[in-house]
């Protein structure tokens, strides 16, 4: 099979011990795992504000996430991926659960990542979405997203605390409702995996793995043991059994060398991202010192040479 004919799910950066740190990408990943469709992962690291990611490629066919129904619906329609929601997606409970997951819980996680993390020493959102962009670009895009989230919820200086409490209160209610609904079952509906399981498990994995221990949202999820068990079980079955793919640093994640992105490595622990970041910071500081010194030397040499530069180049006779 030509390399281009291999099923490829293109997602955001793997981090925090997960195959991808982005909930939407992780949700698509888990659905395809549930559907037992063989595929490989590839990464698109420099487009954090794109709504096309995750996208699925096979040959010249591409299913983008911003097309009708999302990437999974496109795959069901076009590629023939099994519809795990058949028979249950029209149930009233299904629709309510979906609404809860895609609004209250999604909003709470987005708030926690971009707005609530202002007090954290390092933002998980920065690590997931912006760490592969140059520093000024990452900062501007992060700020733009945070501003968008505040505008979406109408958050300003006066009502910031009230809005924060409201967002966490809704998340807490959602967790409680899901915990009650799940009970001791293995999955949310009909004891079989569905797209809602993929959505909630992606959310839960990011909350438990990426958010720091001081996170309010994380602590609220930890209050429900069955939800935590449910997430851990998924992690064991679908994440830990498949070693976290790493990627050799590639410029804009070139596709033809996607096989190298699946080089196996031991699963990253939570402390490894911290260690890498410290090493990166040290390297960055050392290089920036060399760069500043080189710039100073270049400016001094330039001024020295230019003061004795012959202006014979300015030839007015021609």
């Amino acid at each position: 099979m030509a390399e281009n004919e291999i099923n490829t799910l293109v997602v955001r950066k793997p981090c925090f011990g997960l195959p991808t740190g982005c909930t939407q990408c992780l949700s698509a990943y888990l659905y395809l795992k549930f559907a037992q469709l063989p595929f490989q992962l590839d990464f698109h690291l420099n487009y954090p504000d794109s709504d096309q990611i995750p996208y699925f490629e096979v040959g010249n066919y591409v299913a983008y996430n911003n097309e009708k129904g999302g990437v999974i619906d496109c795959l069901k329609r076009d590629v023939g991926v099994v519809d795990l929601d058949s028979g249950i997606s029209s149930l009233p409970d299904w629709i309510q659960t979906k609404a809860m997951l895609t609004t209250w819980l999604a909003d709470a996680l987005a708030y926690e990542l971009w707005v609530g993390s202002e007090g954290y020493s390092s933002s998980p959102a920065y690590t997931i979405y912006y760490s592969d962009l140059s520093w000024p670009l990452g900062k501007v895009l992060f700020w733009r997203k945070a501003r968008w989230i505040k505008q979406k919820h109408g958050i300003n200086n006066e009502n910031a605390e009230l809005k924060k409490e409201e967002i966490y209160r809704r998340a807490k209610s959602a967790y409680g409702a899901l915990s009650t609904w799940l009970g001791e079952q293995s999955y949310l509906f009909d004891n079989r995996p569905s797209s809602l399981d993929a959505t909630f498990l992606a959310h839960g994995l990011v909350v438990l793995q990426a958010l720091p221990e001081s996170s309010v949202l994380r602590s609220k999820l930890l209050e429900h043991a069955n939800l935590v068990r449910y997430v851990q079980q998924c992690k064991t079955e679908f994440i830990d059994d498949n070693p976290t793919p790493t990627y050799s640093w590639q410029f804009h994640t070139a596709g033809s060398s996607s096989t190298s992105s699946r080089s196996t490595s031991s699963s990253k622990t939570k402390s490894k991202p911290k260690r890498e970041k410290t090493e990166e910071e040290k390297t960055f500081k050392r290089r920036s010192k060399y760069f500043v010194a080189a710039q100073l030397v270049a400016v001094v040499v330039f001024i020295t040479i230019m003061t004795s530069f012959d202006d014979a180049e300015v030839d007015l006779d021609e």
Partner: protein
Amino acid sequence: MTHPLNHNAAQNDDVVHPEPEDDEQEDEDAEEENDDDDDVLPNLRAPPSPASKLQQQRFKVETLARRLSSEMVPIRVHDIVVNGNTKTKDWVIEAELKGIETATTMQDLMRACEAAIARLQALEIFDSCKVRLEPGPKELPNTANVVVDVVEANNTVSGECGVYTKPSTSSWTLECALKYKNLFGYGDIWDTSLAYGGSQATELSLGVYAPLIKRLLTPIVARIMLVSQDWQEFSSYKEQLLGASLGLISTKHHDLVYTLGWRTLTDPSQTSSRSIRRQLGHGLLSSLKYIFKMDRRNSPIRPTRGYAFLSTTHLGGLSPDHRSLRFLRQEFDVRLAVPFGFYNTALNLGISAGAVFPWGQGFMNKTSPLPERFYLGGDFSPVCTLGGPTTLWGFKTRGLGPTEPRRQSRNRDDDNNGDSPGWDFIGGDLAVTAFADLSFDLPIKWLREHGIHGHVFAGSGNAAKLTQHEYKHFSPRKFLESFRTSVGCGIVIPTRLFRLEGNYFHILRKDEHDRGKTGFRFSFSAPS
């Protein structure tokens, strides 16, 4: 500005001060040296009448002219005085007067004054510039004072509109600019410009041109710009660049520019091919571009003798951040024009080559940035487009080179639909072009008088991908065998600003997906 010794000039009875004649011409006073040459000056006892005074002055001017034409008249510049500048800093004007103070003969002094006037006018901040020579102090013989009279421009705001060509994008741009001159008195020119061109290219920029900063003899050019380019039709992506550029060196042969910018590639149509798709997103551009240019051809529009050489080195990734766009791009361009001596016939030969590579950790697996690759094609004549491998006669913009199939229709059941998804031109990491153009005058006198001439030409070019292990499949023989070739003939109408060609092309060799067609086409080219 006046000099303390300036008052001596007025007291010298032998000084002649003719009236200034024209803003564009050098004014000179017929100066009288303070020597006691009795052969020249008649000894008058009685006060001279106006008529005899006029005769004396005429005699002196004739003597001076005779001396200037027959011998080197020694002179020494005692002082340079600048008058008329209220806003412009003195040192800005004095810096353009170099060569005057070191003149040792009258002839050298006149040439230096001519050059100084031209340089002052080139600053574009004066309405008029005049240079007068006045005799120096009585006690210092063979000296002269140079007096520079400038009139600063009343109207400091001006507008400009023009049409330019950009070989790098194979497109034309219409540019309108508003200029504000001499805001701070340094001869600085501030401009805001809006440009619109082919491929829906738009550019909004704010720039400053400072011809002189103290102790730096090359002008400083700085720009802040927002550029957007639409390559959707050819390569399924749009490019936007927000950044700043700083011209560090700008001389006749050397150009060094630093650019810092935020580049974004998007695909609103969502039809891009795989390698284009993977490059969409944001990138930081921090690059230094050095251009060495030597053009010894007698004309950039219709060269008939001489040679030209251009080398462009573009190094990206000049920041401590390894995540910025890192690449090295090198271009060479060599031209030769050989005259044949009859019917103004000349053979123009040219060969251009370029390569781009990523650098940094893991560069073997990286790909080169999309906008920095080589895209061949465009309705430009390679004869007057000096700027690396850019075009080949007969091929449309981005019309030849490596291609990739675009995204297939979403509905896979609809395979019977005959619409092909199309192909994206993804550019090459290595490109080579060559051409030969034989131009000759036409037998009709009227055409000859207006410079309209004919030409026959042949061109060849190719581009190949080398990055991401593609170099393993590269072989020089295959590269040479896959060269596209075209021949043709046509009429060339050169104007002062551009070169219009009406050509018939015949494509001898092209690849399956190339966009080139045998036929008749017009092309406009501006010299670069």
